């Protein structure tokens, strides 16, 4: 017990928290996409920060994608308190005098959280080192949890009501328990494929705080009795892969993955695999086939992965965010939160952390992101397998069962529900892997039916019913969901072409 405690403590001792000023350059995918490097150069802000002896730190997007390209200036005073201020949209100019003042500590602001609680709390304030992550709380939950027995942990996950963040919201505690009940060897597969249009939170999490995922993986492996974990990452998410590989190396080198930190008799090997496919490659059984070297197509279920997953052995498959959220369950104020990816007709699109217990209304959330509610006719929740939420339902609370993986697109007065629905149907048709007939043929027919000037709603509904009932995986099973929702909520749209 004491040995483990001293272990993290020793890492913290190595850390460099001392009075210092820092310039955080938000250089994740969002920063790079908005030319952060050349903008900083043009403004001369790196030279200026250096002349003020500030430490220059390259970090990720902090979730406020709307602010990119952005930098954050931080000053830590003699008492160790950190004061920060983020400069947004610096491509539009920056108040250099203000910038100077923050570095001087003449003015103080704080945009950062304390970094200890919340799923996104360390986003945009790490320098890519393990030290910085540990200083802001990484691995401290695992350290505590490793002192408990597996049963206690499993029941904690169950009572926390954490549900799968990959979209289906299956109870995580139950999934872990089912796998733990079966004889090993057991596997863990982390689903970091993130191939659903409109969702970008897992990439942000991996780029911004990969140690939180690793900590979640370790807790799962301990609780379920897993010795081998695969992280299956979208092959196009280059920065996310790089960040995760670096973090794994650091964790290995510092002994986090070894006997110095892990409980007695626990050992775990974590392997990263890159994907190479489209939307369906995020479906869990496709990932199992892919890891085994089989053709990437879905498997029949049952058997479920918790009984027969990788190589026929019990396997837990969890989304990146689900595992990361595990690390927040032992903090003071549960319940867990959910990351959502917000885009469309709002002033501040980006990654947000919302309460998962239904305490926040859509109105409240949208206002916080700078939406003008009277210009928002509806939201699209969950992309090509999702639903439309019309404005008259914005009073309702945000519920996990409605938001899938958390992709939220905000429609504008110019949006055409019909055009969007047709685009989603076209997408499902392109992404159908062709393995089963109801989806291979059904998605083609659905697109055709929807393109008719006057849509035969009866036929559409019949077709969707067949696809729901008979498709091999939920790509086909849910392809009709946005269509049904559009017809239900915007009936006038379907009587004739709405443009």
């Amino acid at each position: 017990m004491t040995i483990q405690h001293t272990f993290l403590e020793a890492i913290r001792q190595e850390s460099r928290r001392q009075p210092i000023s820092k310039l955080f350059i938000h250089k994740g995918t969002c920063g790079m996409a908005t030319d952060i490097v050349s903008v900083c150069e043009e403004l001369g802000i790196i030279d200026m920060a250096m002349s003020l002896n500030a430490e220059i730190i390259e970090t990720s997007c902090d979730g406020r994608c709307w602010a990119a390209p952005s930098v954050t200036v931080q000053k830590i005073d003699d008492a160790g308190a950190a004061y920060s201020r983020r400069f947004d949209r610096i491509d539009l100019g920056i108040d250099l005098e203000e910038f100077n003042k923050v570095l001087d500590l003449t003015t103080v602001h704080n945009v950062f959280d304390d970094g200890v609680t919340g799923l996104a709390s360390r986003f945009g304030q790490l320098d890519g080192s393990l030290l910085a992550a540990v200083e802001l709380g990484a691995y401290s939950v695992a350290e505590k949890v490793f002192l408990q027995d597996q049963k206690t942990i499993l029941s904690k996950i169950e009572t926390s009501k954490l549900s799968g963040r990959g979209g289906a919201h299956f109870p995580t505690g139950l999934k872990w328990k089912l796998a733990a009940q079966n004889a090993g060897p057991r596997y863990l597969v982390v689903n970091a494929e993130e191939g659903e249009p409109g969702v970008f939170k897992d990439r942000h999490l991996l780029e911004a705080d990969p140690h939180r995922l690793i900590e979640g993986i370790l807790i799962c492996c301990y609780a379920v009795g897993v010795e081998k974990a695969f992280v299956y990452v979208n092959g196009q998410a280059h920065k996310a892969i790089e960040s995760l590989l670096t973090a794994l190396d650091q964790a290995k080198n510092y002994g986090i993955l070894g006997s110095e930190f892990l409980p007695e008799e626990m050992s775990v090997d974590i392997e990263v695999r890159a994907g190479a496919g489209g939307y369906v490659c995020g479906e869990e059984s496709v990932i199992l086939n892919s890891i085994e070297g089989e053709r990437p197509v879905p498997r029949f279920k049952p058997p479920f992965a918790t009984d027969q997953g990788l190589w026929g052995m019990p396997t837990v498959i969890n989304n990146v965010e689900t595992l990361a959220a595990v690390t927040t369950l032992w903090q003071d104020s549960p319940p867990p939160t959910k990351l959502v990816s917000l885009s469309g007709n709002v002033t501040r699109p980006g990654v947000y952390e919302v309460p998962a217990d239904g305490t926040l209304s859509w109105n409240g959330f949208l206002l916080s992101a700078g939406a003008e509610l009277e210009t928002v006719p509806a939201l699209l929740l969950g992309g090509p397998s999702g639903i439309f939420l019309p404005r008259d339902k914005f009073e309702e609370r945000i519920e996990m069962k409605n938001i899938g993986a958390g992709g939220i697109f905000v429609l504008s007065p110019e949006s055409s529900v019909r055009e969007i629905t047709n685009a989603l149907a076209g997408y499902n048709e392109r992404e159908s892997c062709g393995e089963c007939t109801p989806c291979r043929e059904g998605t083609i027919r659905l697109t055709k039916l929807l393109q008719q000037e006057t849509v035969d709603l009866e036929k559409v509904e019949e077709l969707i019913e067949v696809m729901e009932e008979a498709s091999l995986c939920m790509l086909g099973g849910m392809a009709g969901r946005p269509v049904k929702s559009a017809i239900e909520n915007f009936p006038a749209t379907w009587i004739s072409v709405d443009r």
Partner: protein
Amino acid sequence: MIPYDMTADDAGDRLANFEKELLVLPAVKSYLLPAFHLAQERLDWLPPESIVVISSHLRIPLSEVYATATAYSELRLEKPQYGAWYMCTGVACEAAGAQRLIDAVDIAPEKLGRIDCQFLCSLAPVCTDHHGKILGRLTADRVRAFFMEDIGD
């Protein structure tokens, strides 16, 4: 990267180097996708020669290796023609004016294609250059400037 070309002088060396690295991967079926990735990283696509080498190292029948490779949309079984950029026409980018941008920049369709969501909808409209780099919050001027710079090099 220059795509592997079996008629080029360096073809033999490139293939031999790839094979050397491939042999480091464990010779089990599970490493099929990692093997494809390795080939694509080193050769830029999966020429038939690479498929043969993968098949023999992992001891998977050639037909099966092909069947699996073709099932992954991001694996290239033909030598890529470079120069093309892709404008995202997913829901968020379309709403942010992707089509208007495509019309405004007036770049030939074989040089500026269309692509589904690139997972950076918060910075729509976005496009992807031929190195896979994503550019966000595009304007017609920005696309033209980057495109000209890129094609120029």
